[in-house]
């Protein structure tokens, strides 16, 4: 039994396991007698739990190969120009692992993105402009899908596909050609049964680094965007972020197969 005076500092000591066990009963009584301190203690505990919950998932994530591969490499190699070495190691791993491994690596960011936000910004602008059209939402309709895809592939300069989003309820409306600085960009427009529209934007950007999926939010719409295989991609729309991310994942898989496979 202790008779010492408690203060706000003791809330932290108690919360962090730094308070001697024998002081705890007296501390609890002190809290009971001071509702403001009781509330404070409760709030700090809630915030801590929230912090832990938010961060807990990170422990479960697969460790990126550039990190998990490190200790397996001889020490001399580590002393070289490290970042470059690890990246080329990771690049080689793509060839070895292929499939899912390639998918994960392909989504990783090895450097500063050149113009990812730029791509996303243009995609959002184009989306906001054309998605609100009632009669002229697309240049070429989905009824001429083969022609549309062939034409846009030729103009943009890569082998494109119009990804199939029917699993998430979005059907192709059609597409159009857009200017992007001095290049050609493609926009595929999709619509769900309620008339909600999302669009996929693709532009060739040979100098670009690969990036992970990133989100850009602007007034009226948001876009998940990524750079990969010398192209910039963005899925834009005014739909919940998780829907948009699902669409971006679908687009990524289907376009990646088309670009690297050369056939669809």
């Amino acid at each position: 039994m202790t008779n010492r005076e408690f203060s706000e500092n003791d809330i932290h000591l108690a919360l962090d396991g730094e308070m001697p066990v024998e002081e705890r009963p007296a501390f609890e009584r002190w809290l009971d007698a001071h509702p403001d301190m009781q509330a404070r203690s409760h709030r700090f505990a809630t915030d801590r739990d929230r912090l832990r919950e938010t961060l807990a998932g990170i422990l479960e994530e697969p460790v990126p190969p550039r990190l998990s591969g490190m200790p397996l490499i001889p020490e001399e190699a580590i002393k070289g120009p490290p970042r470059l070495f690890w990246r080329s190691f990771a690049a080689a791993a793509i060839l070895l692992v292929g499939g899912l491994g390639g998918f994960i690596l392909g989504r990783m960011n090895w450097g500063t993105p050149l113009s990812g936000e730029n791509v996303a910004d243009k995609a959002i602008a184009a989306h906001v402009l054309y998605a609100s059209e009632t009669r002229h939402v697309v240049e070429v309709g989905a009824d001429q899908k083969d022609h549309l895809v062939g034409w846009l592939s030729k103009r943009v300069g890569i082998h494109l596909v119009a990804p199939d989003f029917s699993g998430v309820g979005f059907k192709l409306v059609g597409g159009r050609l857009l200017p992007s600085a001095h290049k050609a960009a493609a926009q595929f427009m999709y619509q769900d049964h309620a008339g909600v529209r999302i669009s996929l934007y693709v532009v060739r950007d040979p100098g670009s680094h690969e990036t992970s999926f990133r989100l850009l939010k602007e007034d009226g719409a948001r876009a998940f965007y990524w750079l990969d295989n010398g192209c910039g991609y963005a899925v834009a729309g005014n739909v919940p972020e998780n829907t948009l991310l699902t669409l971006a994942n679908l687009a990524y898989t289907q376009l990646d197969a088309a670009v690297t496979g050369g056939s669809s």
Partner: protein
Amino acid sequence: MDDKRRAILAEIPRLRRYARALLRDREAADDLVQDSLERALSRLDNWRSGDSPQRWLFTIMHNLFIDQKRRVVRRQEVLPLSQDVADSIVSPPTQFESVVSREVFEALQAIVPERREALLLVAVEGLTYAEAAVVLGIPTGTVMSRIARAREELRASLDDAARRRTIRVVEK
């Protein structure tokens, strides 16, 4: 030597969690982990086998993190943004973040870096004040005062975020 490497490898998930909580951006956080691992592996001899690998690696990461913060400040890359502007240009890394977890990450970023470290090491990573003091190279009393201030800052930011969320809902 291989045992040491394995022990270090086993710490990667926790290093990633700590780095992500410090920096928020996934790629920047993994860069910090990678730099820390590189430094650790090149200085394996400095690690006394009695030491916990985790605390040793946290110490290395702390030094790199503080160096990085100083460099950024010197180059004046940190521009003060109003929260609304920051909200509009923010591009949360890779994974979809729920509104709630985004608020926590944003609130963490609003805490002064030195206080953020102290809070995370103790409240999330489970270090004692004495252990955190060794990692951060500061007296134990300072650990406690940093944590106390960090908690106040966290609370204020989370309250702010909740208020903004309410306002947005009302505006709709």
